[in-house]
């Protein structure tokens, strides 16, 4: 009698399949590699591999003076370049107890808010494009050009300016600055209605984003997720309200909190933030006091020995700088607590159980900028 050999039964549905959403991909917003383990089309787990743009900025800072570090900070989270400059300037000024003129603080706050709006415009364009609506990119970039024009007239460059310096600003603003900002506000208030018409009310977009990628408030705090993402989950973390800097304590703006924590509420949070930023601009733009554009600082800046920490609200979340100084003109250790690094750690948790197409939408709503993660 022949023996019947039964091969082991393999249940093909239980096996996991790893795919690589590689460093070069149109919708990863830079060079992030995600190794996604899927079953069918559902994501079971995700491992992000970063470091494809790790330039060693923290090591470079140990050999540069504080004025030179400002130029490096521009290139970390390049969409909120001014806010990166602001955090280092604030740290140096508070450590040396320098009184910065009022005019400088007003201008810094105004320019920070313009940068935030520009960053969110680009986010909106890319978010729409990731989900298939290429029109959004064209609209977003077109409106962003208006802000780039304002920056170019006053600061000389479109994207990376290094305009703030410890003690004040590199130079005074152009006489047309206030007029142009007011024109921009009137222009953009109309255009933001267009954004709502195109994307917010779109049925496909709502189906793809409602209920997708949920992050509860406790998880947001646990993962250290701040910024619009944390606020969409109900975590009240706006550094502008809790640890005010610049003239944020003199303006009236709301910190809007969401309840759902899904992709759609993260989207709505950024739309609200753009409107709140415009409100802040309206309150400040006519009241810039006259004065110097910089306080008197020595040419060589040496921070007294000790440790310093400074936080600001970047467009993506809380940006922090921790400096250990030993009295020299270069810092002993400089650490940037970047917002996108902590936001990325929650991506694995948020995308479990959803499909790959949802993963792209979740990644878009997280709005990470990879050089901010990798520094």
């Amino acid at each position, binding site marked *: 009698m022949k023996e019947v050999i039964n091969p082991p039964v393999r249940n093909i549905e239980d096996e996991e399949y790893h795919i690589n959403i590689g460093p070069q991909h149109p919708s990863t917003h830079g060079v992030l590699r995600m190794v996604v383990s899927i079953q069918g089309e559902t994501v079971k787990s995700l491992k992000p591999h970063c470091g494809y743009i790790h330039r060693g900025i923290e090591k470079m800072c140990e050999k540069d003076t504080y004025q030179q570090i400002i130029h490096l900070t521009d290139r970390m989270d390049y969409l909120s370049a001014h806010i990166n400059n602001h955090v280092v300037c604030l740290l140096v000024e508070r450590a040396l107890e320098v009184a910065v003129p009022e005019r400088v603080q007003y201008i810094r706050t105004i320019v920070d808010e313009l940068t935030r709006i520009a960053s969110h415009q680009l986010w909106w364009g890319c978010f729409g494009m990731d989900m298939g609506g290429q029109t959004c990119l064209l609209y977003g970039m077109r409106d962003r050009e208006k802000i780039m024009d304002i920056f170019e007239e006053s600061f000389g460059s479109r994207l990376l300016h290094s305009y703030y310096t410890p003690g004040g600003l590199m130079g005074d603003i152009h006489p047309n600055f206030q007029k142009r900002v007011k024109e921009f506000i009137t222009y953009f208030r109309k255009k933001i209605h267009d954004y709502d018409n195109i994307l917010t009310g779109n049925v496909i977009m709502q189906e793809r984003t409602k209920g997708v990628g949920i992050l509860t408030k406790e998880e947001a705090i646990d993962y*250290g997720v701040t910024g619009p993402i944390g606020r969409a989950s109900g975590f009240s973390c706006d550094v502008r309200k809790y640890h005010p800097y610049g003239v944020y304590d003199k303006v009236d703006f709301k910190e809007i909190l969401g309840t759902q924590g899904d992709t759609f509420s993260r989207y709505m949070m950024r739309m609200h933030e753009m409107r709140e930023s415009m409100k802040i601009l309206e309150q400040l733009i006519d009241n810039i006091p006259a004065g110097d554009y910089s306080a008197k600082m020595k040419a060589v800046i040496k921070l007294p020995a000790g440790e310093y920490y400074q936080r600001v609200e970047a467009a993506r979340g809380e940006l922090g700088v921790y400096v250990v100084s030993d009295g020299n003109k270069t810092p002993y250790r400089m*650490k940037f607590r970047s917002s996108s690094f902590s936001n990325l750690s929650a991506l694995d948790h948020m995308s479990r159980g959803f499909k790959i197409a949802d993963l792209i939408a979740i990644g878009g709503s997280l709005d990470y900028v990879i050089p901010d993660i990798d520094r």
Partner: protein
Amino acid sequence: MDNATLKERILELVPNAEYQENKQFPTFIIPPDKMHDLALKLKQEADLAFDFLFCLTAVDRIEFFEVVYHLESTQLKHQLELKVRTANRENVAVDTVCDVWRTAEFHEREAYDLMGITFNNHPDLRRIFLDENWKGHPLRKDYVDEVNIIER
């Protein structure tokens, strides 16, 4: 909770913690073996409630390494800075706090990658920025790279 009460509470929980003067946050140096238990208590006790770890840094202090934790409570709004020092440059293992604050997973991987500090009981301790087979830990003060780094 104000700084004086916070100081008393921490010294109650860890009697041999050392208080360091700092203008911004109350700073304590904790012995490495007590850190994990202290972390659990800081999160769970109702009057402390430190649930937000907003920065984890590794510093190279020539004779030893230091891991600095910056903590905040989202409900009670107080902040704290804790430091853990390794004994010397050779034994650089510290207990992980991933099970208390999930954000520490990535931050500890970065500290391992760039500074070489190993964390006991970390779920996935591997390099995060550099290649798997990169030799050395760049942010250390004795990292030598003649080609790229200019010594002044």
